[in-house]
């Protein structure tokens, strides 16, 4: 079994990674460091299973490329302080569940911190993140509604195929604008959807056709959102941005 790295060794490794040309030895050390998150991640996932039947998808460790990009982007961040080396993601169908699970996680792991990115999005990215501290490590739990996840997947997709800076507010202005518009539209739509959901649940006596009509309007608004961003994507393709395949 490999000897654990000290914080000083981890941060020196981070400085070398930041330079962008890691040696084979650096990659091996980073692998050891990432592996050290396994017990903490396992504890968090076990905890999640006690509060929900939804199985999280675990990301045992951030990719080397993403770690280097983040170290370069945030020049004062130390590798030992990076809070998303290991994490997991839970997709839920609505914001009620999103908030409920975040609160339950904090009860389960009191040394946790909630980051509500729905109110103050990061370059359009909206979600609730709970950074759990356990086993002397931080594990980031991402709680996303389906629509928030759709936005994030689109942004990630563009970041992967066009420019990684898109995730952080950079990249082509037109793409940024489209993503911000999409994010704001979802931000406006989600509370309306929750209101409809509540109304439907609280009025079970309403005739089916009324429920259908109300819910259909929610679906149609979502389809309009989706169609809008798809139109932009097609237009961008015509402008010869390299988007997707």
């Amino acid at each position, binding site marked *: 079994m490999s000897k654990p790295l000290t914080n000083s060794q981890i941060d020196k490794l981070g400085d070398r990674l930041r330079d962008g040309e890691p040696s084979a030895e650096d990659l*091996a050390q980073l692998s050891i460091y990432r592996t050290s998150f396994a017990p903490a991640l396992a504890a968090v996932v076990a905890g999640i299973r006690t509060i929900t039947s939804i199985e999280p998808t675990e*990301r045992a460790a951030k990719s080397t*490329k993403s770690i280097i990009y983040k170290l370069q982007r945030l020049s004062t961040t130390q590798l030992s302080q990076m809070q998303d080396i290991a994490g997991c993601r839970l997709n839920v*169908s609505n914001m009620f569940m999103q908030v409920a699970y975040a609160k339950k996680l904090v009860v389960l792991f009191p040394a946790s911190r909630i980051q509500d990115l729905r109110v103050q999005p990061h370059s359009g990215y909206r979600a609730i993140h709970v950074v759990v501290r356990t086993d002397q490590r931080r594990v980031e739990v991402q709680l996303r509604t389906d629509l928030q996840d759709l936005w994030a997947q689109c942004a990630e997709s563009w970041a992967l195929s066009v420019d990684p800076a898109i995730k952080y507010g950079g990249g082509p202005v037109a793409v940024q604008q489209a993503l911000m518009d999409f994010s704001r539209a979802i931000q406006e739509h989600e509370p309306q959807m929750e209101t409809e959901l509540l109304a439907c649940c609280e009025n079970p006596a309403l005739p089916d056709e009324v*429920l259908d009509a109300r819910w259909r309007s929610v679906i149609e608004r979502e389809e309009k959102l989706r169609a809008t*961003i798809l139109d932009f*994507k097609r237009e961008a393709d015509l402008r010869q941005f390299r988007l997707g395949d």
Partner: protein
Amino acid sequence: MYMLIDYDQKIGKLISHQVFADSERGVAERTRLDLELAQHAVGVMREVVILRAVDEAQIRRTHRRYFQTLDELLAPYTLKRHASTPGKIEPISV
């Protein structure tokens, strides 16, 4: 199960993915390091990441960007999403 993903950001394509059993976390991690070192030896660094879920379908859903184009990501999805919501929803054309 674990899935080791090798994704080429420059061309926006999934190069390979390997699946490991839950009991093979160590094997998956060693394979990732071997892959990173092999890429390093030829001056390449791609997105190499290990994900874990109950099955492959879940990973393909929660990390769709590795497997789908933007057009596919944005395909109509809301009817399925709202299948358990109140009311009887008939399909709508998009």
